[in-house]
């Protein structure tokens, strides 16, 4: 069947169910494309399609971020320290999706241990943005985002700690959703910051995101004590207007520090939302300007604890050394990349004796204030909206010299992460980077109360239909 590539994942699943498309042929189409990947988006590609079975997702293959453990299949979280690691078990969410009919197509490149906003911190080298291969795809789920945007995968999953699904989705012109904390099991996800990490879909459109998410959430996983029963199934989005929808625009996250092109696209989308019947008013998130500082205490603190397990004893890389302490220290030096070392150091420092209250304790209090700000906003608004990323895709290497310049990419996405609430990004147009050049995708972000995913997807669907964003140009 020709035109397989033109079908969204939902359309492909429907075509398979009605007998118009063959799941083996679809798998092979994408397998070949993934194997010839020109973007360094994949770290591993399956060699054959699984046996067909009748399942709700029809057998539409799935690209999976490297950090999800997949039994017998390389899972390194983009790090040298897990060189050659093939886990003996599979992450719950990958297993659930395979059972629902989304079998593993391949593993995707990412920033090492999900730490980064450009995918340049990978032991496998950077992923290239399909809109301009001299630019980054965003991170840390850059491989998943680039693969979906370029048509190297029908859909993908990634993880979001401070924006790692939403920001690469924005920079690659696709849809990305970070669910409510606890909605998706973290069992088998190689941990970065356990109180923030959450898996979610990266897809061509909103309908695909809803369909994939429906099969990621559900009953709580006994293997993840922080997972929860998701209230009700994710609905199929169908809204065509926004009558009665109240959107809050936080002044703190829609002004300073954002590229003019991104702001113009954002304003145009707000105007469109008004035309569709939404009310759009400004709101306040007074503590949002402190979210980035709190995040860069909490996430490194949790990472320094989680990454203590990588010591050259049980799996992966081990450096040669005569004694045990030197073996640990050298293994961790050689096995971790520069950014991971930096965050382990930062996290160890803020947790060290004498500094805990000043940094970690205060950051957890800031986190409470940020959650309170959102709660107050949701008493007046259905969703808070802002751009996803302050900039369009930047050039490879542009922000590597200054760690804080890279961290600033996250300032619009970390507030929702700290509050544990769902947030998603949809492409809302193209904008030229400040230095001129080819227009690149921009993302529009919605954040809603815990477990508001179905309404959020419905709202995003109405916007998507009206926006008419066309990403076909990069699916070549």
């Amino acid at each position, binding site marked *: 069947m020709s035109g397989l590539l033109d079908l969204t994942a939902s359309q492909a699943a429907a075509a398979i169910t009605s007998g118009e498309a063959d799941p083996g042929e679809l798998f092979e189409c994408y397998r070949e494309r993934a194997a010839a990947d020109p973007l360094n988006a994949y770290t591993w590609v399956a060699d054959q399609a699984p046996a067909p079975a009748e399942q709700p997702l029809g057998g539409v293959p799935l690209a999976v971020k490297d950090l999800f453990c997949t039994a017998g299949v390389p899972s390194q979280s983009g790090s040298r320290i897990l060189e050659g*690691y093939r886990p*003996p078990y599979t992450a719950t969410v990958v297993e659930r999706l395979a059972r629902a009919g989304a079998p593993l197509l391949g593993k995707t490149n990412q920033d090492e241990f999900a730490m980064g906003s450009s995918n340049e911190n990978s032991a496998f080298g950077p992923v290239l943005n399909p809109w301009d291969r001299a630019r980054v795809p965003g991170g840390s789920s850059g491989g998943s985002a680039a693969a979906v945007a370029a048509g190297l995968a029908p859909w993908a999953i990634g993880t979001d700690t401070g924006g790692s699904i939403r920001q690469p989705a924005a920079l690659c012109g696709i849809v990305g959703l970070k669910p*409510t*904390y*606890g909605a998706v099991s973290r069992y088998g996800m190689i941990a970065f910051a356990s*109180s923030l990490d959450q898996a979610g879909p990266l897809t061509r459109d909103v309908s695909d995101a809803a369909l994939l998410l429906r099969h990621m959430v559900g009953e*709580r996983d*006994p293997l993840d*004590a*922080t997972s*929860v029963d998701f209230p009700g199934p994710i609905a199929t989005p169908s809204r065509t207007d926004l009558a009665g929808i109240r959107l809050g625009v936080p002044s703190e996250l829609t002004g300073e520090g954002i590229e003019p092109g991104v702001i113009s696209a954002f304003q145009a989308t707000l105007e469109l939302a008004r035309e569709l019947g939404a009310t759009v008013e400004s709101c306040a998130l007074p503590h949002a300007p*402190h979210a*980035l*500082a*709190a995040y*860069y*205490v909490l996430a490194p603190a949790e990472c*320094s604890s989680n990454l*203590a397990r990588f010591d*050259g*004893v*049980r*799996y*992966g890389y*081990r450096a040669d050394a*005569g*004694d*045990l*302490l*030197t*073996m*640990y*220290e*050298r293994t*961790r*030096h050689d096995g971790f990349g520069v950014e991971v*070392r*930096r965050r*382990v*150091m*930062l996290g*160890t*420092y803020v947790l*060290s004796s004498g500094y805990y209250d*000043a*940094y970690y*304790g*205060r950051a*957890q*209090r*800031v986190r*409470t*204030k940020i*959650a309170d700000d959102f709660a107050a906003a949701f008493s007046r608004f259905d969703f808070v909206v802002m751009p996803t990323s302050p900039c369009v895709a930047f050039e490879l290497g542009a922000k590597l010299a*200054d*760690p*804080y310049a890279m*961290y600033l990419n996250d300032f619009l996405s970390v507030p929702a992460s700290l*509050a544990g609430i769902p947030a998603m990004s949809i492409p809302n147009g193209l904008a030229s980077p400040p230095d001129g050049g080819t227009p690149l995708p921009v993302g529009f972000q919605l954040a809603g109360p*815990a477990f508001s995913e179905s309404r959020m997807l419905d709202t995003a669907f109405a916007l998507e239909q009206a926006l008419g964003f066309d990403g076909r140009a990069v699916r070549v």
Partner: protein
Amino acid sequence: MIDRDTVLHVARLARLELSDGEVERMVGELGGVLEHIETIAQLDLEEVAPTSHVVEVGNALRDDEPRESLPREQVLAAAPAVADDGFAVPSPQA
């Protein structure tokens, strides 16, 4: 403030070997990031409770029943060095 000795102390706590050049670089980079982070010191947070968990959940308890674990040989297969059915490491005193 972050100086060379602090970096060396923290690196030891983190079990991370750093070359002299890397220590120097870390002094500058950590100092730079901490300068931004320290803005939260200005906030009045006296009456604010620290977040312990973002969504309300009860205790996740299960029955205390023995279950099968992963087979030993499968787990050891991933290890860099194995001896006597266990993980082998260099001597602490070598």
